[in-house]
């Protein structure tokens, strides 16, 4: 047998040129990519610095402490034009959160309803739901916002001829005016009671599950939880003297006094976002329900579970695993789309930041703030999603 040269004997450095070694090639390629990116970044930054210097635009976030000197139409917290830019931006951020939170709750409710209607055995209902989904998904949300806003200021009468669909509820081109509850210490107590009830339910659930694992005995968690969550606030309301005084809005001069006014801008943004996003949520809900195969229900029934248990223990956990991830991304979409409010004058974060940019000329800082705020929303949502996915992941062999 002729002596064979060992494969490792000649160093590859001597025989192979470096571009045939995948590891070296990869290092070289990465260095090249990073170099190009760094070069472009350096070029852009150098240009920007020079331009800012030449146009004498201030840099840094010092402007945040200056007086904003502009009014904001609606605000959750106290705000006046004498406050700082930082506070104005906070007002904008809170307005975004307000429209997003209310919008998400309404969207999930409406979307679930339409999604279930889409699967109805009633042909008419199913067709109507399908038409709603198809039409609403195919019209830009910005156009929908413009449409609802235009409907407000064009088609609705002034305050003097306001529509009055229910006692104390007025609809006019100044917005939607509803009765407001009079302040009473009971309201705060009710919120506290609700929070306490939720906490108790959480503890109860854990206890019930542990007991079932240990002894096999079940506990009617759902019914007790429902009783607690509904009962505690109602009981508090009753013991604190059951306040039910409300202020009805009344027309004085050219506008309404008393009651709570939802501005046309807020109502239009909310309406547009909810009706648009609900169409997507409906599709997600439908897909989730259909994703659970019929055999699952039949198997659960064969095990002797009651219909409520089949739904709670077998169907929902599987459907939710399919539903939750895209649903979260739709919620995020709604939050991001709320930035379109700037187009119809609702003072959300983008709108306030835009005014700030126009007044101070510090566009880079302004746009950076917008991006940071929305990135914060997105990253916290995806952190939640990753946590949920890990929790809900199918446990395989």
């Amino acid at each position, binding site marked *: 047998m002729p002596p064979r040269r060992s494969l490792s004997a000649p160093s590859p450095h001597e025989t192979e040129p470096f571009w045939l070694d995948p590891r070296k090639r*990869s290092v070289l*390629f*990465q*260095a090249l*990519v*990073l170099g190009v*990116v760094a070069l472009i970044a350096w070029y*852009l930054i150098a*240009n*920007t610095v*020079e*331009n*800012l210097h*030449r146009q004498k635009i201030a840099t840094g976030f010092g402007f945040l402490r200056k007086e904003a000197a502009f009014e904001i139409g609606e605000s959750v917290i106290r705000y006046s034009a004498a406050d700082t830019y930082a506070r104005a931006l906070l007002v904008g951020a809170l307005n975004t959160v307000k429209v997003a939170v209310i919008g998400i709750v309404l969207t999930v409710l409406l979307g679930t309803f339409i999604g279930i209607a889409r699967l*109805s*055995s*009633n*042909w*008419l*209902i199913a067709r*109507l739901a399908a038409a709603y989904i*198809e*039409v609403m*998904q*195919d*019209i*830009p*949300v*910005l*156009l*929908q916002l*413009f*449409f609802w806003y*235009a*409907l407000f200021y*064009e*088609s609705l009468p002034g305050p003097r001829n306001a529509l009055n669909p229910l006692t104390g509820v007025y609809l006019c081109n100044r917005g939607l005016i509803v009765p407001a509850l009079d302040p009473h210490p009971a309201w705060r107590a009710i919120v506290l009671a609700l929070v306490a009830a939720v906490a108790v339910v959480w503890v109860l659930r854990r206890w019930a599950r542990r007991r079932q694992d240990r002894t096999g005995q079940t506990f009617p968690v759902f019914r007790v939880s429902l009783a607690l969550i509904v009962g505690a606030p109602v009981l508090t309301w009753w013991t604190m003297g059951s306040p039910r005084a409300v202020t009805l809005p009344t027309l004085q001069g050219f506008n309404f006094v008393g009651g709570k006014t939802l501005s046309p801008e807020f109502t239009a943004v909310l309406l547009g976002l909810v009706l648009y996003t609900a169409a997507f949520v409906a599709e997600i809900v439908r897909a989730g329900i259909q994703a659970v195969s019929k055999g699952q229900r039949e198997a659960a029934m064969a095990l002797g579970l009651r219909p409520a248990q089949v739904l709670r223990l077998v169907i929902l956990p599987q459907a939710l695993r399919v539903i939750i991830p895209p649903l979260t991304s739709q919620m995020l979409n709604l939050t*991001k*789309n709320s*930035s*379109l409010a*700037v*187009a119809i004058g609702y003072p959300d974060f*983008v709108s306030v930041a*835009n005014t700030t*940019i126009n007044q101070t000329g510090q*566009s*880079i800082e*302004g*746009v950076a703030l*917008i*991006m940071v705020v*929305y*990135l914060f*929303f*997105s*990253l916290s949502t*995806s952190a939640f999603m990753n946590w949920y996915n890990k929790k809900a992941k199918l446990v395989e062999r």
Partner: protein
Amino acid sequence: MNSREPSPLTPAVNPGDTLKPPVTAYGPVGWLRKNLFNSVPNSLLTVLTVAFLWKTVPPLLQWAFVDAQWATPSALCRQSDGACWSVISRNLRFILFGFYPYDQQWRPIVAVILLLGLIFFSRDRKYWTKPLAYAWIVGLAAMGTLMAGGVFGLSAVESSQWGGLPLTLLLAVFGLTAAYPLGVVLALGRQSRMPAVKVLCIVYIELIRGVPLISLLFMASIIFPLFLPEGVTINKILRAQLAIILFTAAYIAEVVRGGLQAIPRGQYEAAESLGLNYYLTMRLVVLPQALKIVIPPTVSILISAFKDTSLVVIIALYDVLKTTQTVLSNPEWMGFSREAYLFLALFYFTGCFSMSHYSRRLEKQLSTEH
């Protein structure tokens, strides 16, 4: 018991005869019973829905068609109870072409027809060949030349004068064609084994997907000029186009990544054992399968990109939405927003619906399942 003997309760049936089902189980009556009145709650629901439709649809039709004004001056419109479609028909040329010089508007018309023709021809998969790709390149170049002018005796038209339908279509078509390859590259980068490339792609994709498009458009319109050296300017349409491309690419990248992850490891290993290098593995084995799987989600990205072109209104580009609003701000046509916006809704709906319809058909054609 003798089964041959006809029972007095059932009619005599010869073995060869087919017995018709009861009238309530087939035909229109059967359909109604099965689909609308199969239970008490469902019957109630049907009745309520029909009553609701009866109350709302006829007045709506009355408003939209019977009482409508189709091409009258605005003064007549204001006296009528119906819809005023005249706001569209009387301003159609402005809505469609914006501030494009009036006597030159045949050029955007030809450009749009060219584009629609290309799209029409690309529907059928039997034309998906190299010549079609060349036709697209030539067609898009011709569109650009027609719009901009300055050669072949066409007078030059500044891009600030472009507007309306051609602008919307231009932003959509160029945005999508440029974003798609970029998205595929980003997706491959995210799957790459090289850490630097992978991190760069992840940061880019997550950053872009985390912010609203409007912040990128703001960036394009107010910050981007600061990035360029003194004296160099890029026109506003191109900047908005860039923002749309960069935005859409991140979303396409995520969709394509889903497709790449769905390809079994064996495919990569088989390609490698055939001696294919990375580029050939991707081009011949992995991407053709991955991109096919993700056709439906890709189309929904394309649809949302088409809808998102309307956002350029906010940075004051004259797409169809902005030209319509310009018409509505004219005192003569103030107050007819409903009609104008409904018309636009119909326009966007037609575009998006035909795309999603087409994707469903394509999905069926490409399906290799038995």
